[in-house]
């Protein structure tokens, strides 16, 4: 049977790509082989449009043990401890079937982390929905949140934070990015590279079903009005089996029996076996009759392309096979040797005593097409904000309106559906600048923050790319930790469009600059292209997940103001930049102007000084100033403790809105004891850092002298109503 044009298109391949396949095989492919190529060569697995740009990002420094290219990134946090982490998207499945899409997103990222030998200790997420007025939003929000919770809660890994945002750009293409963080002994990290010939290749975990066939190909195509029909390509999650698989794998890892291990994620059995063989420069031979199947009469095509969840492929030391089987028996999981590694450098599939596919591994992995796609330099909108004609609104009304907007509202309606404290090591839950999780049984902890700034990126991708890295860095510092490394999830439209590709390239350039300057390497990540519906792209939305370290549990701080009479100081200069601010968007629905500028020198200087002050025990509480500006950050500190604040008017600003709602970067609010003021001032002066006193902590009342006075309780009420109203059961 000859492969026809329609089949090639159905598999998401281009005609010239199929011609290359023929060339590599030296013959026509059969349908199974076409399926395998399409699974390996799609954007999701091959990074064919992004690879040449991703190479620019810094991925190494003295703490990086493993950078991009493995299941997850690994960093050294001292002693024998390593942190293994990664963020990944599950956007398309979550739009089609929000509960299962989000749940399996969590499952997949957990496997990436425990495959490498880590016990997962925390989950985070970044979720973006369409406008609240869009008819799908409520259903999607509910489904995604219960899916994330349903999976993590059951496996027993705390979901400690994240971010949730709304914008009409995501109406037909929501974003669900999940991050997992695990802890491992740095001498016991497991990789996917196969070693040795004739080693048993073992299939463990769930049985293979017909779910998720061609999921990776689906994720690499844009949506249209028939997307609903793609439901069968969404996998169904089983967190219970994940828990079994997690425990069984970690138990097996205590023995020295695993040579290499790889989870079956996107493109299932196909990509896992090929990845292992390709890294080890070996061949692999599978007997598909041995694959544990959930349904009868599954074809080789279905087995190879199924994305059934909770499965792993392990290459074992042949002497340890019996012992390994015993562990999987204990956990009631399938454990089947589906044949062996070879020296042929080919993927050979046997079924019913016939060879049904025979492909050089190199063709699938190394020969995957790579594109240097055409890209247009984004046109940067200059800051042409004209505010003179806008209606004046009282500052306290602005405050309330921003605090009660969907993006700024308290997210406890969401986070109360996540078990945040199981494992009993969560020191700081969601709602702070970063979550804090203790390393079990040790006097040290890590901080985790997930951030994005799609508005900034859409207006100036390069500056936006820089900004998110900086904001993430700032969040980790605000809790008192030393920022170490990041993972990124790059959500963009179609790479085949030069404008989208331009956004992608420039965002990466911005990130690169910031990461290099801050010594903040990227150790893992994921690219999600084709986030568009009917040819309309989403805002460029890179998401950053960062990890920081506390080498002592006494250094952890939060944003809760502590004592009446203490002073709040702003560190970092306010210029009054309102372009792309929450103020302009929430109050005037204006999306014009450029985002605030990033000055990396100041950013680093300010951050390091804050960390220094925290380490000298001079800071009672700390909060970074980001979206919404100073007044919103002050309100958040006040609501965290329910103490009030007496805010001072700035000396140099005539336009209070510019002072209080500007989103200038590199700024922090710190609470200090009056007695420490001199000491703090001298340290900041020595580093040449701008600061000024902005407020004093008081009881109950949040006020700006001679302008407004509101009870903190009232702020809290306004900040806590949106989600409840939006999701009220009618």
């Amino acid at each position: 049977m000859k492969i026809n044009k329609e089949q090639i298109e159905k598999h998401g391949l281009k005609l010239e790509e199929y011609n290359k396949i023929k060339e590599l095989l030296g013959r026509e492919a059969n349908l199974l082989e076409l399926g395998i190529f399409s699974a390996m060569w799609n954007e999701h697995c091959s990074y064919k449009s992004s690879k040449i740009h991703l190479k620019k990002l810094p991925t190494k420094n003295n703490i990086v043990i493993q950078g991009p290219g493995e299941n997850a990134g690994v960093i050294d946090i001292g002693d024998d401890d390593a942190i293994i982490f990664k963020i990944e998207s599950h956007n398309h499945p979550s739009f089609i079937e929000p509960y299962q899409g989000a749940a399996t997103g969590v499952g997949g990222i957990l496997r990436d982390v425990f495959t490498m030998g880590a016990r997962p200790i925390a989950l985070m997420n970044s979720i973006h929905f369409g406008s609240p007025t869009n008819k799908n939003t409520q259903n999607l929000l509910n489904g995604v949140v219960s899916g994330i919770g349903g999976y993590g809660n059951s496996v027993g890994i705390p979901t400690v934070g994240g971010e949730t945002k709304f914008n009409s750009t995501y109406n037909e293409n929501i974003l669900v990015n999940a991050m997992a963080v695990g802890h491992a002994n740095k001498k016991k990290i497991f990789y996917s590279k196969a070693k040795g010939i004739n080693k048993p290749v073992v299939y463990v975990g769930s049985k293979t079903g017909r779910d998720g066939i061609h999921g990776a190909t689906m994720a690499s195509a844009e949506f249209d009005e028939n997307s609903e029909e793609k439901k069968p390509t969404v996998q169904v999650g089983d967190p219970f089996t994940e828990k079994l698989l997690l425990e069984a794998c970690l138990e097996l890892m205590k023995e020295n029996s695993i040579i290499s291990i790889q989870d079956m994620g996107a493109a299932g059995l196909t990509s896992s076996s090929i990845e292992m063989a390709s890294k080890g420069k070996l061949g692999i031979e599978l007997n598909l009759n041995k694959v544990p199947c959930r349904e009868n009469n599954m074809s080789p095509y279905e087995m190879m392309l199924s994305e059934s969840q909770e499965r792993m492929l392990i290459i074992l030391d042949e002497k340890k096979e019996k012992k390994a089987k015993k562990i999987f028996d204990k956990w009631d999981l399938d454990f089947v040797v589906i044949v062996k590694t070879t020296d042929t450098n080919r993927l050979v599939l046997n079924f019913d005593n016939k060879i049904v596919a025979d492909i050089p591994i190199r063709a699938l992995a190394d020969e995957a097409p790579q594109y240097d796609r055409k890209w247009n330099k984004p046109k940067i909108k200059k800051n042409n904000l004209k505010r003179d004609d806008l209606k004046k609104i009282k500052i306290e009304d602005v405050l309330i309106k921003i605090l009660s907007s969907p993006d700024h509202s308290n997210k406890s309606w969401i986070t109360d559906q996540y078990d945040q404290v199981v494992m009993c090591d969560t020191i700081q839950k969601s709602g702070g600048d970063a979550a804090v999780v203790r390393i079990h049984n040790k006097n040290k902890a890590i901080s985790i923050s997930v951030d994005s700034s799609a508005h900034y990126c859409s207006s100036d991708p390069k500056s936006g790319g820089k900004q998110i890295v900086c904001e993430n860095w700032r969040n980790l510092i605000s809790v008192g930790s030393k920022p170490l490394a990041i993972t990124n999830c790059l959500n963009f439209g179609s790479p085949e469009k030069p404008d989208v590709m331009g956004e992608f390239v420039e965002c990466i350039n911005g990130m690169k600059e910031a990461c290099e300057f801050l010594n903040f390497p990227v150790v893992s990540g994921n690219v999600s292209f084709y986030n568009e519906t009917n040819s309309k792209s989403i805002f460029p939305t890179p998401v950053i997940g960062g990890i920081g370290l506390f080498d002592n549990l006494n250094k952890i701080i939060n944003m809760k103001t502590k004592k009446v009479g203490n002073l709040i100081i702003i560190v970092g200069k306010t210029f009054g930049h309102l372009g792309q601010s929450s103020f302009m968007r929430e109050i005037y629905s204006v999306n014009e102007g450029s985002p605030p500028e990033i000055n990396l020198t100041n950013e680093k200087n300010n951050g390091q000084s804050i960390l220094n002050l925290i380490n000298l025990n001079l800071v009672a509480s700390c909060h970074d100033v980001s979206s919404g500006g100073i007044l919103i950050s002050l309100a958040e500190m006040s609501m965290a403790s329910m103490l009030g604040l007496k805010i001072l008017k700035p000396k140099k600003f005539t336009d209070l809105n510019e002072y209080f709602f500007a989103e200038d970067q590199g700024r922090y609010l710190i609470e200090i004891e009056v007695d420490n003021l001199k000491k703090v001032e001298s340290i900041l002066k020595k580093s040449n850092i701008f600061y000024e006193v902005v407020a004093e902590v008081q009881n109950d009342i949040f006020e700006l002298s001679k302008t407004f006075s509101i009870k903190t309780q009232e702020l809290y009420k306004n900040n806590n109503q949106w989600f409840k109203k939006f999701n009220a059961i009618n």
Partner: protein
Amino acid sequence: MKSSVIVFPGSNCDRDIAVALEKLQFKNSMIWHKENILPKSDLIVVPGGFSYGDYLRSGAIAAKSNILNEVIKAGERGSLILGICNGFQILIECGLLKGALLRNSGLKFISKNIFIKIQSNKNKFFNKYKKNEILELNIAHNEGNFFTDKKHLNELEDNDLIPIKYCDKEGNINPKTNPNGSLNNIAGIFNKNKNILGMMPHPERMADKTCSNEDGLPLFLSLMN
């Protein structure tokens, strides 16, 4: 004191409870669900989690497991048994406790810190607390909405068999301070002999000052009394 923590494949609070028990010098053993023998212990804990996935009614399959037969026998002999969260659901499913745990009234999984008020301290589990003391504990469940018939409810109320009820910070017990729709704000119940306690809140999550408070610790201390 010797304790045994029952471990189902989907238990996920087993390590947490073990840490709390060992902190107080319990000699603790972890007992795998496939075991047929339960070592002699002063306290048996059925921990939180998702026993066998709980895709069926929570705890329904666990109630039929090998080890549960031994737990039931021990309970009938008068051993102290503590079921937390999924453990409470299992104790109800296996008949050691009466009533039912329905889906939360809000139809959502709830995980947050709540307050409970000690209704009675004249028992093995709460004797280190004062009567009417208010504790802040954490809950994390989908099915914690306790329900039972009138006769059983009266029996519980009249015989001091409801040691803890949900309340607010000030101790008010009313529908507004009820997180999951539980009858009479019930957070936990005893069997008739008060040797078996089932509770939805997690005391083991409040046993470490670094992460939380220590409101859960006196429960374990009470057991040693």
